[in-house]
């Protein structure tokens, strides 16, 4: 879920904005012109698939695809996520500007970790589909951990909210694991060069 404005206190807003800004600046500095179409496309993918919602009991969840974005973009993921969030704010007024930092961190840091995990696993020649699924599950779990940490640092009253949030993300972790595994398997079958950075045989 995206946090809306008003949740974080001023120190948390400043800290998360600076941290997210550093991630985005790093992504921009390492961006080659040839990467622009790929990053734009992943930004749109992040945006469009976040519009879908699966019914879970009385509520619904929507995919974040942090794991998949991390696997495809690596360290450029923060740029795609940040722009995707700005577009969501522009069209649907989802999220906010004081929470743009934390929302970017919540998706892009797990995406980078998923990328590192996937890269390490590929070097060890592990099963690509299983690894992609696990990377996606790890990414969702990390998203929850980051969210809970920031909320608990903001105010002790958010403790109860954190528990509800953590439970709400469990089905999402399962869903994203299967979706990402399926997507990566499909990419490997039909267009392996998209994942050429991992030097998979």
């Amino acid at each position: 879920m995206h946090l809306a404005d008003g949740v974080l206190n001023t120190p948390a807003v400043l800290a998360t904005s600076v941290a997210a800004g550093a991630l985005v600046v790093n992504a921009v500095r390492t961006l080659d012109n040839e990467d622009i179409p790929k990053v734009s496309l992943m930004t749109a993918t992040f945006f469009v698939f976040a519009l879908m919602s699966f019914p879970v009991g009385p509520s619904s969840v929507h995919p974040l695809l942090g794991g998949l974005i991390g696997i495809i973009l690596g360290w450029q993921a923060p740029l795609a996520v940040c722009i995707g969030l700005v577009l969501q704010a522009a069209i649907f007024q989802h999220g906010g500007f004081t929470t743009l930092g934390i929302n970017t961190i919540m998706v892009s840091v797990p995406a980078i970790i998923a990328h590192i995990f996937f890269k390490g696993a590929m070097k060890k020649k592990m099963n690509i589909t299983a690894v992609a699924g696990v990377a996606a599950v790890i990414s969702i779990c990390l998203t929850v951990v980051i969210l809970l940490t920031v909320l608990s640092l903001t105010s002790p009253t958010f403790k109860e909210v954190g528990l509800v949030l953590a439970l709400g993300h469990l089905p999402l972790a399962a869903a994203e694991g299967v979706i990402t595994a399926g997507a990566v398997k499909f990419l490997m079958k039909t267009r392996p060069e998209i994942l050429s950075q991992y030097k998979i045989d």
Partner: protein
Amino acid sequence: MPEEYIPSLDGNLTYLDKDTFIQRWDPRTKIVTCISLVFLISAVKNPKNIVLICLFLLGIVLFMGLEFKDLIKRTSLLFPFLIFMGIPILFGQGIPISNERKEIVILLAFKSLSSLYLMFIMFFTQPMWEFLGALSFLKIPNSVMSIIFLSWRYVFILGNRLRDMFKGLYSRGFKLKFSKATFNVMGQIVGGMLIKSIDTSDTVYNAMLLRGFDNKIPVSRPRDIGLMDLLKSSISIILLILVLIIERW
């Protein structure tokens, strides 16, 4: 129907074509002011002040031409989030609810609403191409602006493609539910759409390069920032800073 799960993008783009002082405000100064105000609002600590600020912004939003029905529809999108955050905070330590918890929920709700109204002011008072053009003149790197412009285009292409895919799936009896089979199908859809879109994006990008694209999207130069634009920005920012100073006096 796919619309049940994938909302239409076109219906959510609003431009309030009315001649008010907000629409006449230069987009660059308006963007900087609205973002500054959102950050300043996050520092408000008094529930009465935040309610007043929120009502003031609501008045501006209605004045600039947003219909009441549309306002309710768009504001209601925030309600699940507020309920989700508010109820555990209010009842987290049982009944009676302490004043501190009530204050936190009031601050949370009205800060979120105020920021939402500032987003309406920022996004709905000029056409989106003018908004994106204004961003280009705010010292944002060319590569980032190129990604923003291209993503803006791809969002609509992918959105329509996804809706078409779902129409096809629905006509074959597919139901979007929380099951492994659904997620397997979703994985293949994501993969398929990525491949198709990467091909499209590469073709478009190469065509742009052949036509002399140098990673800078050309946009027309906006009019000069006038005294009134600066006045609107400084008055609104100074007023909010004054509220914060008085609050901490």
